[in-house]
């Protein structure tokens, strides 16, 4: 049985996987010795994963599972490739559908009674909305999934997938956002060290500015109709560092107002860099150019030696132009956005959550697969270009394709790391995907932090 490694279209793979499943059944049947058949089955599934956990779901060979997500190509292709092992084990066909309009279309489909079997929700806020608006459509996670999540994930991750005490959604991939991209060679040529505290970072920024006379940081928050979100990550990182994770939680749950003095302090801290014309926007213009520079290109100044540091998430790795070497000895690398806190090491994070709208056995089997360590490892192997990590602690870092991904996984699994979910994804949609974004743009184009935060607070639903 040849293992298909091509990233050809899903249908072809589905046919191949279905064929493989059929061949397995035939092989098992033609084998006079039952023992041998079972052994044959595990090995001929490519020796990839243990198929035993899916046997309790009964005969699901030939069934189909429809998955609807926001992860389009090229990341979509690696997602699909990571399902091969499951398809070969069970004979189930996974139909993968991805759309950039996922968040709007999913609600339309739910309202029309046309829900997919499984959807990957990129925000716990959306999960809350769906659980309260469509209680009949959404299905709680099966016990096998809950067991997997208990075993492989930190409790906070399980909390994000839980609404009112019912556990619905297991985490899938994870993002880690508290990183600063830099050029290792520029740093070593100039004799700078990677800072390990926030104070050291600010000192280094001032030193670079003094030494070169130029600007230090580059940033950009333009992102089409979502313009502003990269800026919200800046603020959230600062809230975590100046006010701490507890205040952070009170902030997104609206126990304290959006314009609380502690939050304003975070805006000021971010403003020390983002609103200081001496520090931004290296190679791109003045402070207001941050609002109009596309976030996908904002860091390119590092490659041109015009910009020293760029704060962006781990998935910024896939945005570097083709041929850029991302490693500690290469063109670019990232260090953890440091903090002056000594007890905790806050990490701003994000991720997708596997939500089911059907409870057929094949769907539950697939949910179980996605929450297992097997899937995380398969996904890591299926992502040769990197830029992907999971909070699944069964993930073997050696399977991660790149040095940077391994570094991210290391930070995520550090016992001092406190993963705080992206607050704008936890706030109500009107704020987290609306007024907060606009506040960032206005703040960067001349309004004061007091004005824009008061505006968000006054419009809190």
């Amino acid at each position, binding site marked *: 049985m040849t293992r298909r490694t091509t*990233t*050809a*279209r*899903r*249908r072809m793979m589905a046919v191949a996987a279905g064929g493989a499943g059929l061949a397995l059944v035939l092989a098992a049947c033609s084998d006079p010795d039952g023992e041998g058949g079972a052994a044959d089955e595990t090995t001929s599934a490519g020796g990839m994963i243990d198929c035993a956990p899916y046997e309790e779901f009964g005969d699901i060979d030939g069934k189909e599972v429809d998955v609807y997500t*926001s*992860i*389009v*190509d*090229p*990341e*979509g*292709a690696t997602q699909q490739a990571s399902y091969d092992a499951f398809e070969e084990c069970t004979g189930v066909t996974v139909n993968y*559908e*991805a*759309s*950039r*309009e996922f968040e709007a*279309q999913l609600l*339309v*489909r739910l*309202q*029309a*009674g*046309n829900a997919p079997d499984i959807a990957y929700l990129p925000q716990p806020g959306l999960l809350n909305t769906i659980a309260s608006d469509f209680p009949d459509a959404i299905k709680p996670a099966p016990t096998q999934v809950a067991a997997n999540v208990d075993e492989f994930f930190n409790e906070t991750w399980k909390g994000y997938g839980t609404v009112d005490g019912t556990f619905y959604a297991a985490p899938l991939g994870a993002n880690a956002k508290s990183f600063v991209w830099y050029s290792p060679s520029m740093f070593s040529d100039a004799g700078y060290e990677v800072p390990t505290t926030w104070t050291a970072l600010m000192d280094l920024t001032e030193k670079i500015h003094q030494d070169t006379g130029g600007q230090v940081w580059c940033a950009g928050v333009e*992102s*089409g109709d979502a313009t502003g979100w990269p800026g919200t990550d800046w603020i959230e990182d600062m809230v975590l560092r100046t006010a701490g994770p507890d205040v952070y939680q009170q902030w997104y749950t609206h126990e304290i107002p959006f314009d609380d003095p502690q939050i304003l302090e975070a805006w000021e801290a971010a403003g020390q860099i983002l609103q200081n014309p001496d520090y931004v926007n290296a190679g791109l213009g003045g402070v207001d150019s941050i609002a109009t520079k*596309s976030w*996908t*290109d904002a860091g*390119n100044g590092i490659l041109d030696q015009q910009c020293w540091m760029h704060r962006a998430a781990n*998935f910024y790795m*896939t*945005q570097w*132009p*083709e041929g850029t070497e991302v490693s500690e000895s290469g063109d670019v690398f990232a260090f953890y956005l440091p903090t002056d806190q000594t007890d905790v090491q806050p990490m701003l994070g994000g991720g997708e959550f596997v939500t089911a709208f059907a409870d057929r056995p094949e769907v539950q089997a697939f949910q179980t697969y996605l929450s297992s360590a097997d899937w995380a490892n398969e996904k890591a192997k299926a992502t040769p270009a990197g830029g992907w990590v999971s909070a699944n602690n069964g993930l073997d870092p050696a399977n991660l394709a790149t040095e940077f991904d391994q570094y991210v996984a290391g930070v995520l699994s550090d016992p001092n790391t406190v993963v705080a979910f992206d607050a704008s994804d936890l706030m109500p949609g009107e704020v987290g995907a609306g007024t907060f974004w606009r506040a960032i743009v206005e703040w960067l184009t001349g309004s004061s932090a007091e004005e824009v935060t008061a505006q968000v607070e006054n419009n809190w639903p």
Partner: protein
Amino acid sequence: MTTTPTPGPNVVVPAADEGAPRTERKLTRLEKRAIATKGRLSSPWASGIAIVIAILWTIPSLGLLITSFRPESDIRRTGWWTVLTGNADLTMDNYNEALYGNSNDLATFFVNSFVITLPAVLIPITLALLAAYAFAWIKFPGRNFLFVAVFSLQVVPLQIALVPLLSDYVNWNVNGSYWTVWLSHSIFALPLAIFLLHNFMKDIPPSLVEAARVDGAGHVKIFFRVLFPLLVPAIASFGIFQFLWVWNDLLVGLTFADPKYQPLTVAIAEMAGSRGGDWYLLSAGAFISMIVPLVVFLALQRYFVRGMLAGAVKG
């Protein structure tokens, strides 16, 4: 108006025959106006302004076209106008990537777009012709009320019909096929189609229809022999409208079609990638999708202008 005592023409006109001179005077005025307009339009100033507007209007498209041939790193760093300085390389990479890159096999989506567009143009035109004929030439009780009702449906935005329509399709078990896409496009197109074609039909002199009726022609014969040949420009111009609308539609295709039936626009919208990082491919994608409407428009523009003018002068 006729009471203004301007000497000259008034004196010459015989009071007994009022109909003829009125038309004559009207014609002269129209002609005068036509001549004046012609003079105004052909003045060098007007030509200059027209050319400036044309250039301003074309620059963004030109920029998009140039961008689509530039390498990714150049698109991300500099504007398309840097090409004008001379030292810039052009490449077909974006087109290659857009057409064959990972699973974006655009050929399938091209076929889907055609399969969606052709019936979605033909169905509403056929239905609208029948309805327009009835509204224009068949007297039945409630005709005006019904016509106003159809006409006013135009102000209903299609977005509010999306969810109810989709839930109906799901209940009827027809969801996700081409049928629902055709049906939806037809539903959304019909009010405007009926209104436009009705106005064109109404403008055909009643004497033509009456003459045919005296000669013993029924509705079918009148429709095909008398009205249809006169309506060709109108049908063609609405056809172009509808073709462009359906070809460029994203919302209906995205909402009602299953992935394997989705049109080109959906595939192009996905090209930018999950986080929008591959936006540089969109310029190439836009031109790939633009080719077909451009050909259709250039091939049929004769009718388009004629149809628009017919509507503008008579309606």
